[in-house]
Every structure is written in C-alpha cells, then in structure tokens.
C-alpha cells in the first residue's frame, strides 16, 4: 500500500495543493484529474521524492519514506514523466543503462518479456536500435514505458502517458497497461490524461485536484482531494 497523508506543496508561499491525502492499494487503477496548473505533475513528482514536500508524509509498505533508501523506493514506485528523456544512443542502450544502476543489480533484462511487450505495442525488432534523434515524440513515450516496465516496478505514476501518440497507438498502450496490471495482483497505477474517456476506460476511481485557491472562488474548497468513482 502506498499512502500519502496531509501533503502540502507551496509555490511562492501559496499552496498548490494542501492537506491532500490518498491511497493506492494493490490492484488499484486510479485517475488523477484536475485542471491545468492544479499540480498533477507536481503531486506525482512529490510521491517519488523528486520534489520536496512542504508538509505531509508518504508511506509505502508501512514504512515512511524517510526510512526507505530512496533509490530502493523508486525501484518499486516509478514516476514516468510526460516528456521522458532520451539524450543519446539507442533505445536498447538506454534500457541497458537503466539496468546498470546499482539498485537493479539483482535484475536481468528479460528478453522474452521485452519481445512480448513490443508485440503488444506492434513495434518491430528494429525499434530497439533506433537512436534518440530518430525517435518521434510518440516513440519516445513508448520507449520510456517499455524501459520502465522492464525494470519491474510495483506502482506506476503515469503522467499523460499517451499524450504524443496517435489513436491506434493509444489503444495499444492501454492494452499493454491492462496486460501489466493483470500480470501481478500487487501492480497499481495513478494515471493523468486530458482525455477523460481514456480515464474512464482505464481507471476504477479518481482523485481530483481543484487547483490553487483563487481569491474569487469562495465556493471551491481549495485544493482538498475528492475521491469519486470514475465512469459514472
């Protein structure tokens, strides 16, 4: 279980979200919703400790984040940025680089699994030898997803994972994520998207961020989170 309690993040002294609590249980498929600027990306970054929190506590497997070795925690709880980066080299090299991190030393690249994932995405074998400067935005997103899944995380925080993909690819990525979720009862994800139909398809419930407190919006209960079933 991944729990976050009373999280607050200030930007220039103003809370972007405050007193925010959430839970991700085994098998959870959760949509993270909110208008632009409501801090969805910032929340995901905070959940993996890439941004510092101003207040609040994050627990994973009943241990506070302070007690985790952070690389070890990020081995299990993985954030994939929307514009996941590939600086140089081929897709294969970047996958191999990530396997070389000390925290993954017990892990070897499962080529059968890689082949299977690539079949779901309908990617040819040659995709692995494409270099960074020849990858389109959509291909980068798929490569980033592949790279992450092969490192066997338990929790995925997906920030607009299909934002650069055309429609046919979107459904393939969704199939891949469904396949991944069925692969282990402990897998779970938090997913943001501007496509609300996608969120309805992929998630079972949602967390809503209202965005920072506006001076002229008294009816809004600032940035508290509301949990509601998705897909009504």
């Amino acid at each position: 279980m991944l729990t976050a309690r009373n999280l607050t993040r200030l930007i220039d002294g103003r809370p972007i979200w405050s007193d925010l609590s959430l839970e991700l249980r085994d098998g959870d498929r959760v949509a993270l919703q909110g208008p632009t600027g409501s801090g969805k990306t910032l929340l995901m970054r905070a959940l993996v400790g890439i941004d510092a929190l101003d207040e609040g506590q994050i627990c994973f497997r009943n241990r506070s984040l302070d007690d985790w070795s952070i690389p070890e925690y990020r081995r299990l709880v993985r954030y994939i940025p929307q514009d996941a980066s590939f600086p140089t080299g081929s897709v294969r090299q970047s996958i191999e680089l990530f396997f070389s991190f000390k925290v993954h030393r017990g892990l070897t690249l499962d080529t059968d699994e890689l082949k299977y994932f690539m079949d779901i995405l309908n990617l040819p074998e040659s995709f692995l030898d494409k270099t960074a400067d020849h990858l389109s935005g959509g291909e980068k997103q798929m490569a980033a997803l592949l790279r992450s899944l092969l490192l066997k995380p338990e929790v995925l925080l997906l920030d607009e994972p299909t934002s650069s993909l055309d429609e046919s690819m979107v459904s393939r990525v969704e199939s891949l994520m469904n396949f991944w979720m069925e692969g282990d009862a402990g897998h779970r994800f938090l997913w943001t998207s501007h496509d609300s139909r996608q969120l309805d398809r992929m998630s079972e419930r949602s967390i809503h961020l209202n965005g920072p407190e506006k001076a002229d919006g008294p009816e809004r209960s600032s940035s508290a989170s509301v949990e509601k079933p998705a897909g009504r």
Partner: protein
Amino acid sequence: MEEASYIVIGNGQLALAALLLLINIGLSVVLRLGLGRDLIVGAVRMTVQLALVGLVLEWIFQVRQPLLILLMAAVMAGLAGVAAVQRTSRRFPGVYWNSLVTISASAFLVTGAAITGILQVDPWYEPQYLIPLLGMVLGNALTGISLGLDHMMEGCVRNRNWIETMLSHGASRWEAAHDEIRQALRTGMIPTINAMMIMGIVSLPGMMTGQILAGAAPLDAVRYQMVIMFMIAACTALATLGVVLLAYRMLFSADHRFIRSRIRSK
C-alpha cells in the same frame, strides 16, 4: 646589490614604450573603431595596477617576513577564488565558499609540495619562488574552476529532464550526476592539456621567456617551465575536481533529489 644581468628599464624608456599605444589610438581614430577611450583606460589601469603590485612586491621582498608573505599568498588565493566564480553565468548558495576552499587547498598543497619537496627552497617562504609560482598556479586553477563550475551547472540545468528520469528509475544521485561531473572535469582540464600540447611549438610560455630575458640559460628556463606545468596540471585537476564535487553535493540532496531551485542565473 649585484649588477643585474639584464637591462634595467628607466622612466624615459617606459614613456617611449607607451608611445606604441599611439599606433593603436591612431588606427582607432582613422578606422572609427571607437576603441580610443577603452584603450586609454585599459593602458592606464594596467600601468597603475602593475605599478602597485610592483611596489607591494618590492616591499614584501625586502621585509621577508613569513607571515606577511603568507598574507599576500592568502589575498592572492582569495582574489582568484572570487574571480573564478564571477566568470560563471549561474550561481548556487555557497558557491563562493566552495571556490575559495578548493582553490586555496589545491594551490597551497601543490605549491607547498613543489617548494619544500621539489625545489627545496630555503627558507620555504623565500618570496622570489613562492609568490610567482603560486600566482601562476592560481591563475590556471581559476580557469579550471570557472569552466568546471559553469559546465556542471549548465549541464545539470540543460539535462534536468534526463537526470530526473534516471533518478525516478532508481539511479542514485551519483549515478544520475556522473555524466555531468565527468563532462565538467573534462572541460575544466582542457585548457591545461591544450597548453601542454602546443607548448614550445606555437607558444613560448611567459615565465620561460621572462627567465631568458633576465639572463637565465634557456635550458634552465625550460626546466622551470616543465616543473611549473606539472604543478599547474596537478593543481587545476585538484581544484576542478574539488569544486565540481562540492557543487554536486550542493545540487543533489542526500535523498537523491536534484535541487534545481538552488541554481540561479547571475
């Protein structure tokens, strides 16, 4: 004082040399380069600064007080440390301290080792050796520090996305920063390596030429130049490494975060 083996330049000769500046000013006026003012200011600054340094050095060489010489050395190191940071286009908190600590530690270590161990100057504080050697080592370490710092900060800002992608995939802060550190060290060392590559072919180094002018045998002057180049290379490597590692500790927190907000533009 014994007879100098070189021609002492008198005031009249100095004034004659200053007339050479008229060539530059004339060109600037004729070609409308608008450089006349800058040239004059530059020439005046150079003259005043060098005259002052000359007076201070003359005094220090006469007094020959170890404490005073050390003070002079500390001032030189301090100025070099500040100048190194001033050449960079970004800053982080504590950057001046980082620069001061590393340039002082590396320059004093290398110069000290050379003076006591290699040249075996007696007494060790003999300003004729200590001051010029330290000055040359500092000048080069300064370049290494400013290039290394600049590259480290620039690289981390430019590749933030990639660094954070690595971090979020379980990379330790060291694994995530490793490439930037390596690049920063390379960049800091390149001027020194290039200087050694072309030394004697394209350029006749200033110190060696100076010694030859002062009457030293060319082969002796060459030996001094070799020693100083080894000192410069060692000191620049130490200083660049030190300052880049301190920057790394400041920019990457112990809980494996890259703290972008610590880097500000000038």
